[in-house]
């Protein structure tokens, strides 16, 4: 048997032997670098390790040079206990609690095998959180698919949702939020991003770091099988061609298969191991499996490690050392424990029926030493694998970027106005930042007042079109498949602006979390688009009354080998880092997913941003639906005529062009401060952020999430179309508790947040005076019918 295995001795003896480095995703230069590092050709097992560890997915080799900005520009934050470089960032939320959260992609596996791909995406992010020493307490999912009615979407979406439902529900983790969006650019490249939140006592933070020679390395969890081999290097790190060739089926063995019940046992087992104090260091086995866990644990500890692969329990006895190292079998963890703690460690694993095996020990050699049947098959410096190469890929502004920017939706707005109305004045013409009732930026003012019956009919039709579009439609078809009640601490979940969890049952301390992204904004301007994604998530968290604290992101892009994509990426990262600095919320970690493209066609650049905030008392949280009749409705923030990348332009006109809404981070900060103070002081009964579809869609959602209609008048100074559908940022609609109107208005004035009274809640219709009236039943039918009609 040993004769068929490529040992270090063999490698030294046969320097010229051909190796399949290209098939494993390594370039000729990378292969040459490996030979330089080792002073000989790598063994088959070493080549396996480098191929997965140096993959884009594991090494961030194209993105690291940009991602540094998240650390360099990080705002000072007393709350940050662990940041970038760890499995997941950890944030101090007070009262001795720390929260860890991270978002990660499982895009490529979910296209190849939607159910298992999405399920194991949940499993992977949950183990990341577990490896920080935290109890996972909730998940969120941010999903994007091709056109809703495309045949392949009907294959992919139901499978993805069922996979998330199967895995998360079985784990007993509430699914409390996220997003669902559609665009033809994601057909062939769906985005399946999973976020997990975990909680621990702040003193219990575990960092993945092997130290202490003689300490034992324990592999525990499921046995190792041939599933997912090369998942990181083959699926997530290169363009894979799927057009009609059945290519996705050929890749299916690269997708892992999940066992959520084993993961549940792993969670409880790990938490008991932590409590018993028998864990020196721990790492999860995700992408690149044992290869990743051994090299990263050893590299982080600055030590060496000796591992015997003969000890690894196998599900398939035919697996050789390279396959064992690369396998991405799910539900496995690796821990380092002191020899004296080992019996207790194994006893706890046995209690939870979790198989555990000592496969090696920590050494002071500074080398990762792996043996197979007595022969050395790996002997390398762990940091050389864990750190990976670093690329500065060429970036170039796409050739069509100017054309896209100049394709201003103002022309559509003008066309929508009645004859003699705004007369072609561009709503975007004007000095940036200039605002006022007479500013040219609100140039269509008065042009479409809604008094004309024809105009009213059009606007009413536009609203119903937005509400019934797949992007604007009610997402219950999806969210009803997720358990959001389990664990009994969910205060808010979908369809509210952010998920809110109670962390402490005595003090009612809690957290709020939301994810947002907007590919349309980002394709028009990746710098501003990334900032708008952050601003929206920040605003959604603030809309519950929480104070935003920290950020995680999942950066979904096309191929980094395309300079246009690399430009989008660089712009988005720069925008996000700059905005985090201004908003005072550090990036604590995240994930990059490149190669989301089919042939030469990349997805819209889609950074998805997760924001976590803290609520000192979750009983003060603000829902996003009208609470009852007779409450005063106010609009906060400034409305400009901003339709670039808007849902209105997309749905009503199939248009994508111009520039996205102006980013005003100072205004976002002030709005968040007003919302937090309004919630804490009991002045507000509800808040809902304005985003896709603007005020009209927001008001409709408030009527539907709540149980009552409203009667409002549109704010003065802008035309009806702009007032209804513009997507100006830094805005929210709130209801003020009876008697608190003056106090709240003073609060807004003190914070320089523009506010205006729109009307009152009540009745059974969305009644926008002089413009349109739609009964709640009609709103509901438009909003709720779409996804069931498509997906059954």
């Amino acid at each position, binding site marked *: 048997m040993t004769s068929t295995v490529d040992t270090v001795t063999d490698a030294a003896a046969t320097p010229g032997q051909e190796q399949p480095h290209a098939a494993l995703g390594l370039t000729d230069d990378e292969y040459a670098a490996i030979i330089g590092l080792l002073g000989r050709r790598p063994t088959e097992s070493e080549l396996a390790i480098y191929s997965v560890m140096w993959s884009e997915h594991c090494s961030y080799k194209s993105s690291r040079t940009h991602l540094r900005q998240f650390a360099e520009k990080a705002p000072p934050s007393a709350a940050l206990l662990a940041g970038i470089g760890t499995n997941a960032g950890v944030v101090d939320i007070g009262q001795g609690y720390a929260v860890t959260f991270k978002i990660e992609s499982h895009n490529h596996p979910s296209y190849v095998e939607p159910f298992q791909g999405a399920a194991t995406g949940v499993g992977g992010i949950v183990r990341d959180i577990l490896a920080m020493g935290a109890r996972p307490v909730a998940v969120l999912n941010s999903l994007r698919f091709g056109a809703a009615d495309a045949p392949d979407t009907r294959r992919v979406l139901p499978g993805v949702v069922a996979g998330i*439902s199967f895995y998360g529900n*079985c784990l007993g983790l509430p699914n409390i939020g996220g997003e669902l969006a559609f665009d033809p650019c994601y057909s062939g490249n769906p985005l399946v991003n999973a976020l997990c939140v975990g909680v621990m006592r702040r003193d219990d933070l575990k960092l993945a770091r092997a130290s202490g020679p003689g300490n034992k390395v324990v592999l525990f969890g499921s046995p190792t099988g041939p599933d997912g081999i090369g998942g990181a290097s083959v699926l997530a790190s290169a363009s894979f061609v799927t057009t009609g060739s059945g290519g996705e089926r050929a890749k299916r063995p690269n997708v892992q298969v999940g066992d959520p019940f084993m993961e549940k046992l792993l969670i409880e087992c790990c938490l008991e191991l932590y409590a018993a104090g028998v864990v020196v260091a721990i790492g999860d086995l995700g992408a690149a499996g044992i290869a990743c866990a051994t090299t990263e644990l050893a590299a982080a500890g600055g030590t060496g490690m000796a591992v015997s692969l003969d000890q690894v329990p196998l599900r398939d006895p035919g697996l050789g050392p390279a396959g064992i190292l690369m396998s991405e079998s799910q539900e496995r963890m690796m821990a380092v424990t002191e020899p004296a703690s080992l019996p207790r460690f194994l006893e706890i694993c046995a209690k939870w029926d979790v198989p555990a095996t000592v496969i090696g020990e920590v050494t002071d050699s500074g080398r990762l030493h792996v043996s197979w049947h007595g022969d050395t098959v790996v002997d390398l410096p762990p940091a050389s694998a864990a750190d990976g190469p670093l690329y500065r890929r060429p970036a170039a502004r796409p050739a069509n970027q100017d054309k896209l920017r100049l394709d201003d939706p103002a022309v559509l707005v003008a066309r929508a106005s009645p004859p003699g109305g705004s007369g072609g004045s561009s709503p975007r013409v004007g000095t940036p930042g200039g605002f006022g009732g007479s500013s040219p930026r609100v140039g269509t003012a008065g042009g479409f007042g809604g008094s004309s019956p024809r105009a009213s009919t059009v606007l009413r039709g536009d609203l119903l079109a937005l509400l019934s579009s797949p992007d604007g439609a009610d997402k219950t078809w999806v969210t009803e498949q997720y*358990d959001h*009640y389990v664990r009994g601490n*969910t*205060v808010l979940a979908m369809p509210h602006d952010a998920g809110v969890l*109670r962390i402490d049952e005595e003090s009612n301390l809690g957290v709020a979390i939301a994810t947002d992204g907007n590919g349309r904004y980002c394709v028009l301007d990746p710098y501003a688009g990334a900032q708008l994604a952050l601003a929206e998530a920040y605003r959604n968290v603030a809309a519950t009354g929480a104070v935003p604290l920290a950020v995680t992101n999942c950066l979904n892009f096309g191929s980094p080998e395309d300079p246009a994509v690399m430009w989008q990426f660089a712009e988005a990262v720069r925008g996000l880092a700059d905005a985090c600095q201004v908003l005072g919320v550090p990036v604590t970690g995240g994930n990059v997913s490149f190669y989301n493209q089919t042939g030469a066609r990349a997805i819209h650049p889609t950074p998805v941003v997760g924001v976590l905030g803290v609520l000192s008392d979750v*009983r003060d949280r603000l829902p996003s639906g009208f609470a009852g009749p007779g409450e005063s409705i106010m609009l906060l923030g400034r409305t400009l005529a901003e339709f670039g990348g808007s849902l209105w332009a997309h749905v009503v006109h199939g248009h994508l062009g111009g520039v996205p809404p102006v980013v005003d981070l100072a205004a976002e900060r002030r709005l968040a401060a007003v919302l937090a103070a309004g919630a804490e002081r009991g002045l507000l009964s509800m808040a809902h952020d304005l985003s896709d579809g603007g005020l009209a869609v927001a008001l409709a959602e408030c009527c539907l999430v709540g149980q009552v209609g409203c009667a409002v008048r549109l704010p003065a100074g802008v035309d009806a179309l702009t007032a209804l559908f513009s997507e100006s940022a830094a805005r929210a609609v709130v209801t003020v508790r009876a008697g608190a109107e003056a106090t709240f208005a003073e609060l807004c004035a003190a914070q320089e947040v523009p506010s205006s009274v729109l009307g009152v809640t009540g009745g059974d219709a969305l009644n926008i005076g002089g413009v349109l009236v739609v009964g709640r039943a009609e709103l509901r039918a438009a909003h709720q019918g779409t996804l069931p009609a498509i997906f059954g």
Partner: protein
Amino acid sequence: MPLWHADHDLRGVDAVILPGGFSYGDYLRCGAIARFSPVMAEVAAAARAGLPVLGICNGFQILCEVHLLPGALTRNAGLRFVNRKVTIRIENNKTRWTTGYSAGQEITVVLKSGEGAYVADHATIAALEAGGLVVARYADGNPNGSADVIAGVANETGNVVGLMPHPEHAVDSLVGAGTDGLQFFNSILSAVPAG
């Protein structure tokens, strides 16, 4: 007091709740493997001797598998997991777990299951109906295709109740669907001796 699945010991408890969740991954059939847990032998024996037992969701599935209750729970008619608030009508308020409700009372609880469709042969259903052993029925439609819109059943002595929806998610308005589910637990607390 938590009871460990691998123990042959009920630790002197006055009543047992088999909660919802997932057991052994339920890959074969929900509850089919869990029924063979060592502790289930003690639960079954004690239940036959009159110990109050409430099975919720997966607990209901286990009670059916271990034949403390008739029938079985199968895939929802829609073939998808369903998580929604439902209104159920308490049909039998004489069981050990439902005395806190009035007969015919409609309450809001949470249904969240993928295999919640109650099925049994015609004779069994007829016997359940004739014996008044249907504890609760869905009152606002049939969310999962259950026979006779049955949401919960009892054994003939009324000490063993299986319920598909989750009353424990309706005990605190802050984190659940109102407080209508509380009476399941108050019923049993008032039925067993204090202390």
